[in-house]
C-alpha cells in the first residue's frame, strides 16, 4: 500500500518526466544550431514599442524614435536578431505560420520624473517572464541618443556578458581646407566634434585602453612629433619631440607605455617609452623601416610592419624585441595591423589585385579570411572594443576617403561619416568610461 507521501512523490516524478521529455525536445532543437566553435548563432529579441507617458514622442536627433534606435543598436551589435512586435495573431493550428518564439523582450517607458524625462528600460526573459534587469536612463530634453545607446549596451551585457559598443566613439583624421585635424564621433556617426584646431597635420590617433587618452602624430612644431590628448579636458601634452620623424604611436594595454616608430638614431625603428615619452627603449635593429606597431591585448607581443625582406610585411615580436618572426606572406605589401582586444585575431590590409583589401588572421598567421573585395581600396582597419567590428577608411574611385564600419567578416558595411573632405586614420575607443555620461 502506497502512502500518500508516495503518491505525492510519484506525481512529482510524473510531472518531472513529462517536463524532461519537453526539455529534451527543446535541447534537440538547439542541437541543430551546432555547438562547436565557429557556428555563430544570434539571440532573438523583441523590442516593443515604448510607452510614452505624459511626454511628447519627441524624435531623437536624426529623426528616429527611441525604440527604432534601440532596435538598430541591437541589430548592429551583431548579437541579436531583432524583432518588432508581431503584426498578427498566429494561428496555433497552422504551424507554418507560427513564428519562432523570441528569447528576450526589451521594453521601455518614457516619462517625466521630477521634471526630468527618463527612459525606464526593462529586459525580460521571454520564456519565464523573469526581469533580467531594469534600469533608468536620463533621456533629457531634447532626448539624448546616448541614453538609448546605454540601454542597448546594458542589454548586450546582460545577455552575452560582453561589453557593447553602442556608447563607444571613433576618433579619426579629417581634412578641413589644408589642415588635417582629429575628430571624434559616436559609433553611429552622430555627435561629431573636432578635438584639435592646430591648423596643421595630425595623423594616426590611437586610444589608450581606457579610452581616456589619445596619442597621435602632429606636425604642428614643424616636424613629426608625438602628442597625447586627454579626452576629459582636451589638454595636449607633448609625448616625443625627438629629432626626425616620430610616428605611429600605440599604447600598451595598461596605459603605462607607448610604442612608436622613431628615427632619431637614423632609421625608422620601433621603440617603447613611458607615457611621458621618457626612457625610450629600442626594440628593432635593422637597416630596414620598422613602423606601425600594435600591442597584443596582454601586452606580451607587438605586431608591426617591416620591409626587411624587401617588401613591407607584417612581423611579430615579443614586447622586449626578442623572437621576431614574419607573420604574413600575402600580396606585395601588408600593413596597418591591429590586434583584436579579444586577442584572437589580427586585422590588416594587403595589396592584392589592384588595391588594398582588409584581411583578418589568427595571431600566428593562420586562418586568414578576407573581409573586403572589389570595393575600392581600404586603409587603417581598426578593431572595435568588442572585437567583432572593424572601422576602416575606403578610398573610393573618385579618390575621396571615407570611414566605414563593418563586422569582422566584412558584413553589414555602413558609412560612418559623410561630410566633404577626406576622413581616414580611424581609432575606436572603449566605451566603459563613457557610461558616466548617462547616469
Amino acid at each position, binding site marked *: 500500500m502506497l502512502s*500518500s*507521501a508516495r*503518491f*505525492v*512523490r*510519484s*506525481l*512529482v*516524478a*510524473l*510531472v*518531472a*518526466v*513529462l*517536463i*524532461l*521529455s*519537453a*526539455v*529534451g*525536445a*527543446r*535541447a*534537440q532543437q538547439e*542541437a541543430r544550431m*551546432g*555547438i*562547436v*566553435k565557429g557556428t*555563430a548563432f544570434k539571440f532573438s529579441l523583441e523590442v*516593443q514599442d515604448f*510607452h510614452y*507617458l505624459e511626454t511628447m514622442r519627441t524624435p531623437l536627433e536624426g529623426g528616429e524614435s527611441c525604440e527604432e534606435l534601440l532596435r538598430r543598436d541591437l541589430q548592429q551589435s551583431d548579437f541579436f536578431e531583432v524583432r518588432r*512586435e*508581431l503584426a498578427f*495573431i*498566429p494561428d496555433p493550428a497552422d504551424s507554418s505560420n507560427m513564428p519562432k*518564439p*523570441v*528569447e528576450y*523582450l526589451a*521594453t521601455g*517607458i518614457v516619462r517625466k520624473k521630477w521634471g526630468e524625462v527618463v527612459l525606464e528600460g*526593462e529586459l525580460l526573459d*521571454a*520564456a*519565464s*517572464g*523573469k*526581469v*533580467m*534587469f*531594469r534600469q533608468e536612463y536620463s533621456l533629457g530634453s531634447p532626448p539624448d541618443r546616448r541614453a538609448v545607446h546605454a540601454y542597448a549596451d546594458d542589454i548586450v*551585457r*546582460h*545577455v*552575452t*556578458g*560582453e561589453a557593447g559598443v553602442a556608447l563607444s566613439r571613433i576618433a579619426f583624421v579629417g581634412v578641413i581646407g589644408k589642415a588635417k585635424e582629429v575628430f571624434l564621433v559616436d559609433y553611429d556617426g552622430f555627435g561629431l566634434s573636432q578635438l584639435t584646431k592646430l591648423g596643421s597635420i595630425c595623423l594616426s590617433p590611437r586610444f589608450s585602453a581606457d579610452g581616456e587618452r589619445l596619442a597621435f602624430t602632429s606636425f604642428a612644431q614643424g616636424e613629426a612629433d608625438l602628442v597625447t590628448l586627454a579626452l576629459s579636458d582636451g589638454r595636449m601634452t607633448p609625448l616625443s619631440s625627438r629629432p626626425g620623424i616620430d610616428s605611429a604611436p600605440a599604447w600598451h594595454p595598461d596605459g603605462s607605455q607607448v610604442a612608436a616608430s622613431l628615427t632619431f638614431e637614423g632609421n625608422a625603428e620601433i621603440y617603447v617609452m613611458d607615457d611621458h615619452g621618457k626612457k625610450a627603449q629600442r626594440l628593432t635593429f635593422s637597416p630596414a623601416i620598422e613602423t606601425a606597431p600594435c600591442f597584443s591585448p596582454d601586452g606580451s607581443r607587438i605586431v608591426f610592419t617591416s620591409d626587411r625582406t624587401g617588401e613591407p610585411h607584417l612581423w611579430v615580436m615579443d614586447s622586449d624585441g626578442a623572437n621576431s618572426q614574419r607573420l604574413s606572406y600575402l600580396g606585395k605589401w601588408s600593413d596597418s595591423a591591429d590586434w583584436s582586444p579579444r586577442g*584572437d585575431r589580427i586585422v590588416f590590409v594587403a595589396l592584392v589585385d589592384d588595391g588594398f583589401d582588409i584581411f583578418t588572421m589568427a595571431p600566428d598567421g593562420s586562418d586568414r579570411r578576407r573581409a573586403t573585395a572589389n570595393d575600392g581600396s581600404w586603409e587603417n582597419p581598426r578593431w572595435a572594443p568588442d572585437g567583432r567590428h572593424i572601422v576602416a577608411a575606403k578610398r573610393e574611385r573618385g579618390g575621396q576617403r571615407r570611414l566605414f564600419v563593418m563586422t569582422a567578416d566584412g558584413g553589414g558595411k555602413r558609412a560612418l561619416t559623410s561630410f566633404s573632405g577626406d576622413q581616414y586614420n580611424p581609432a575606436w575607443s572603449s566605451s566603459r568610461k563613457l557610461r558616466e555620461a548617462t547616469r
Partner: protein
Amino acid sequence: MPAMRESRSENPRSEGAGDPVRFAAAHAYAASKAGEAKAGESDFGVAGRLRLIDRKLLFRAIAVSGLLHLAVSVAGYIPSLRHVRPTPAPRQTAITLVNLPAPGRATFKRVAQQQEVKEVEAPPPPKPKPPALEKPKVAEKLTPIEVKPKEKPPTAQEAKEKTQTRPAPEDAAKEKPKTGGEQESNLVTNLPALGDATHSIALQAEGPIHEFAYYLSQIQRKIASNWAPPENFGGRRVAASVRFRIERNGEVTAPRIDEPSFDSIFDQAALRAVAESAPLPPLPAEYADEWLGITLEFVLRP
C-alpha cells in the same frame, strides 16, 4: 526598489495584453511575483501546492494516470540508462545526458552537500527493483529549471518555493536525516546537455538559481560557442568536467579541471572554452548569493 515596483504596476507594460508572446511572458511574470509573496510558507513546491487541494480525490485520479505515464516513459529511458554510451537517437540524447553523469561520478560528491547528492545519485544503481518510482527522483532535482516555461503558470511559484524552503516534511525529510538549517547555496540544478550527436555540454549549477533557468542556458550556450575540442580519439568517448565560479558581475573565477579525461589536450580545450567565454553575463539581480558554482561536463562521442 518598492517605489519603482508600485509605479510599474500602473504602467501599461504589466497589462500583458497584445500578442501571445507578450501575454505569456506577462503571465509567467505575474506568477513569479505571486510566488515571491507566498514563498516561505510552503515547503516543497509541487507537493506543497497539492496539499492545498483535496488530496485523496486527486491522488486517485492522477496517480493512476501518473503511474501509467511513468511506466511508459521510464520504459523508454531505461535502456539508455543502463548503457554507458547513449544511443544518439535524437529524443533520448538529452535525457540520458542529464541522468547519466550524476551517478557514476565522484564530482558531485565533492559538491559540498552529500545529502543532496545522495538523493541525486543513489537511487538508480543500487535499487534496480522499482525503477519506475526511484528513477524520477533524479528528475525531481532537475525539474525546477524547466518547470516554469513549459508547465502551467503556478509552477513558477512552485519553483520559487522550492528554493526558499527546502524539503517537504513528508517527502524528503523521510529520506534524509535533517540537519537543521540547510543553506540555500546547497541547491543543485542540472541543465540538459546542449549539443548534437557527437558533442555535448551538460551543466550543473550550485546555488539558488532554480528560478533563473534562462541564465544557465545563456552561459551554457556561450561556453558551447567557444568550445573547439580536438576531434580524433579513435572512436572512443571522451569526457571532462570543468568547475568554476561566476561572480555577481559575471566574472569567472577559479576555473579548473574537475574530472579529467584521458587526454590533456581535450581537457585544455574545455578549460579554454570557459576562459574565452569570460566575462559571462552578470548574475540575475534577484539571485540571492554572491556567486554561483558551475560544473560543466564536456563530452565528445565518436
